[in-house]
């Protein structure tokens, strides 16, 4: 293959990859399961996914890839004064029990760190209940090689 042909084919392949890559990202997170999440949201909050407002005040830190789903570090921090956060909930879309934890900061700062089990590759949601009744949302996704629930 000469240089010109090589550039032509790799260029075409790269642009095809770029084109294919963007719509995937727009579709949302890997391991989403809104039906399963909706049930857990209704149970924990009495609200659905459409009542949540995505917010960049909520910072959810999850690893992109977890080798074992049995022990995945999760960290959530809310950029609001402590008194304004009533509760922080964590959910994993694909878990048999999607609700991971509910945290009430009270006198603590709106920060919570723990280690969770993930059954499989899943989207993770942090839902923050504020004192004025708003529900803020942050999402992340973790790819799991070996599940931790079975």
């Amino acid at each position, binding site marked *: 293959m000469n240089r010109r042909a090589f550039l032509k084919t790799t260029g075409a392949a790269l642009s095809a990859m770029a084109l294919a890559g963007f719509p995937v990202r727009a579709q949302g997170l890997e391991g989403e399961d809104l039906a399963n999440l909706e049930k857990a949201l209704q149970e924990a909050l009495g609200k659905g996914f459409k009542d949540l407002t995505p917010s960049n005040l909520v910072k959810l830190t999850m690893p992109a890839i977890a080798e074992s789903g049995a022990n*995945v570090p999760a960290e959530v921090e809310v950029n609001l004064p402590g008194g304004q956060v009533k509760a922080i909930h964590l959910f994993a879309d694909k878990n048999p*029990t999607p609700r991971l*934890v509910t*945290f009430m900061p*009270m006198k603590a700062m709106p*920060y919570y*760190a723990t*280690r969770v089990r993930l*059954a499989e590759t899943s989207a993770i949601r942090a839902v923050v209940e504020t004192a004025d009744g708003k529900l803020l949302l942050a999402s992340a996704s973790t790819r799991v090689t070996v599940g931790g629930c*079975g």
Partner: protein
Amino acid sequence: MAIRTIVRLTPAKPKAGEEFKLQAVAQHPNEPGTRRDAQGNLIPANYISLVEVYFEGEKVAEARPGPSTSANPLYGFKFKAEKPGTFVVKLKDTSGDTGEGSVKLELA
């Protein structure tokens, strides 16, 4: 059997007004109730469902973990250092077993 609980502060001696982390680690299998043993029988669920943090006898934070918490779990909180005192972390699992760990907050 009481749940073994270890509590530590980072930094160990925060300055007044500084933020610090309080981390509690418990020795607990945290069975979610979905796992099977070698014979294929379901292992019954038994997980820590209540974590309470007290400072000088006053409740300052509470977490209610679900079954999907890892074995030997870690719970991390952040506080602002105001005055010295003692933090007590109390745990309770779904079988009614409890655990307690404490740490002294000293200001630098």
